[in-house]
């Protein structure tokens, strides 16, 4: 049952991407292309997608998070970090370059797969490789950890 519900929730997300036009990379790129503003051919649609999504999620989250627990899980897993570390700038900076190169971000690229697009398939395969690589590097022991003696008596 929980699995079926999550499939339906993914379906709603995908329908939102299609109706909003965001599954089409040309629309995303025409938003990011601020050089079109003077000519009047700029496509501001993405800002309206964000506005609609944030408005609903802002109201919805505040209500759902008042519940004692989620319907299918023991507790809520809401991020609590507030620090601005280098990774929260470096990661999105790299992500934005990839986004701007093709007009695809992870959600729309997956939905574009369902359009039967070979280009989306190539992007998604490369994206998964990038993700696995990032997790691998992030999980490597840091030099500080390596330098820590395993035997406390050695210090």
């Amino acid at each position, binding site marked *: 049952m*929980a699995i079926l519900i999550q499939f339906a929730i993914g379906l709603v997300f995908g329908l939102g991407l299609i109706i909003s036009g965001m599954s089409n990379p040309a629309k995303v790129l025409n938003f990011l292309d601020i050089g079109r503003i003077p000519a009047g051919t700029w496509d501001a649609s993405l800002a309206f997608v964000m506005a609609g999504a944030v408005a609903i*999620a802002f109201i919805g989250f505040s209500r759902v998070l008042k519940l004692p627990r989620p319907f299918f899980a023991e507790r809520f897993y809401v991020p609590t970090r507030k620090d*601005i570390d280098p990774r929260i700038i470096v990661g999105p900076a790299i992500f934005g370059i990839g986004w701007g190169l093709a007009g695809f971000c992870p959600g729309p690229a997956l939905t574009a797969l369902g359009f039967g697009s070979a280009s989306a398939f190539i992007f998604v395969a490369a994206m998964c490789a990038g993700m696995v690589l990032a997790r691998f590097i992030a999980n490597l022991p840091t030099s500080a950890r390596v330098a820590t003696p395993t035997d406390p008596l050695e210090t």
Partner: protein
Amino acid sequence: MTATSFTPVASLLGGALIGLSAVLLMWATGRIAGVSGIVARLFPPYEDRAFAGRFAFVAGLVAAPILVRIVTGGLQEQTIAAGTPVLIIAGLLAGFGAVWGNGCTSGHGVCGLSRLSVRSLVATITFMATGVVTVFVMRHWS
């Protein structure tokens, strides 16, 4: 570059559906609807037992256009201008950056901003900025 028409009403409505999906996922599983986090955790190392649910969510994303085609008999046209080498580089960068920065357009842009997260605001401003610069360089410098 292909011209696209400005669609404020459809985009606002579609955006609302995306927001609704994020709220429903929080209600059901207690988790953020961050597509990059969900996809990245389909691969090892596995930290929990939520694989099947994540796979189902991704399957729903992929199935959406198939459903639209069955119900309405057609799909809007998509224009993907990038060639294979650009798609590969773009995918690698987007995948790596999303995991390195703990989120993408959905996790930081939609869910994070809705929770008034300062980290997500910083992330969203950063990827919007580098996205704009990338498109500017690609389209207007060459």
